[in-house]
């Protein structure tokens, strides 16, 4: 392990010991953060997974009903019916803080109904299909949000893990080794000083 290039004196030793203590404390904190992030992340993945399964199933259903409605109408009729939608879909966005990760959160505002067409020219299944779509909107937005959270958390976990590893495998061993090196050097200097003294004393006698 590479040790840090410093002058082996008492001042540096004290400084390094302090740095080592801080590094170890930071390492412990980051490790705790990583554990908690992982816990939250796995919860979120579980939610995203079940939500996606549900959304995909319901979307498939909605498509089927819509296809039935389409088969009962001619294309022009359908286009006309959908040409002036009244419903206004807007999302309010705010940021939430999950374990120091800023994640967007949406509030769905769906104003106006989907009834923007003549009831006499459209079949019943058309209403049902659109009702299904309307019910799906909040779920789709929620799914987008959760999946986005998952990817943001994944990035944060990766970053935190790199920091933990850098501390654990590079900085802390280097500091420890340097502390040992300086201690040994200082001891050596003291021994040589003592032998010098002894030698001088024996020469005086």
């Amino acid at each position, binding site marked *: 392990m590479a040790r840090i290039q410093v002058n082996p004196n008492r001042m540096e030793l004290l400084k390094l010991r302090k740095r080592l203590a801080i590094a170890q404390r930071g390492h412990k904190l980051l490790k705790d953060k990583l554990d908690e992030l992982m816990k939250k992340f796995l919860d979120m993945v579980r939610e995203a997974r079940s939500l996606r399964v549900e959304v995909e199933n319901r979307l498939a259903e909605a498509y089927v009903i819509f296809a039935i409605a389409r088969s009962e109408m001619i294309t022009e009729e359908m286009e006309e019916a959908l040409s002036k939608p009244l419903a206004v879909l807007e999302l309010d966005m705010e940021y939430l803080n999950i374990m120091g990760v800023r994640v967007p959160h949406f509030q769905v505002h769906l104003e106006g109904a989907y009834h923007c067409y003549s009831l006499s020219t459209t079949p019943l299944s058309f209403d049902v299909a659109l009702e299904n779509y309307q019910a799906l909107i909040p779920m789709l937005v929620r799914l987008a949000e959760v*999946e986005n959270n*998952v990817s943001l958390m994944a990035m944060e976990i990766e970053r935190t893990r790199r920091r933990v590893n850098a501390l654990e495998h590079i900085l802390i061993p280097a500091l420890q080794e340097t502390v040992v090196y300086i201690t040994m050097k200082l001891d050596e200097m003291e021994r040589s000083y003592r032998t010098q003294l002894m030698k001088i004393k024996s020469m005086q006698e």
Partner: protein
Amino acid sequence: MEKLKVAMIGGKTSSMGFKAVGVEPFPASVPEEGPEIWKSLPLERYAVVMITEPVYKVLREKVPGFPPQGGIPIVLVIPAVTGSQGLGMEGLKRRVEKAVGADIGSGE
């Protein structure tokens, strides 16, 4: 707070119905039109852009830096009328693998 919209890029049949509930549809008659539509989209207006699987596939191959990571708008893959190809689940799985180093929990 900002007011944002939801857009959708997909086949005509897939995106038509969503128009009635306030989603702004950008129909692509073939998936290969996807990149053009994506580039012309005023992205800052949207919170979520829903993209059907066939179009998503083309975009992933043709557009560098797609899908955008970690910002607004969020790209949401949804199955097209023709049925799910499992792209959404695959994306989720990849993110788990990236963070954890292994795919766990997908067997649930």
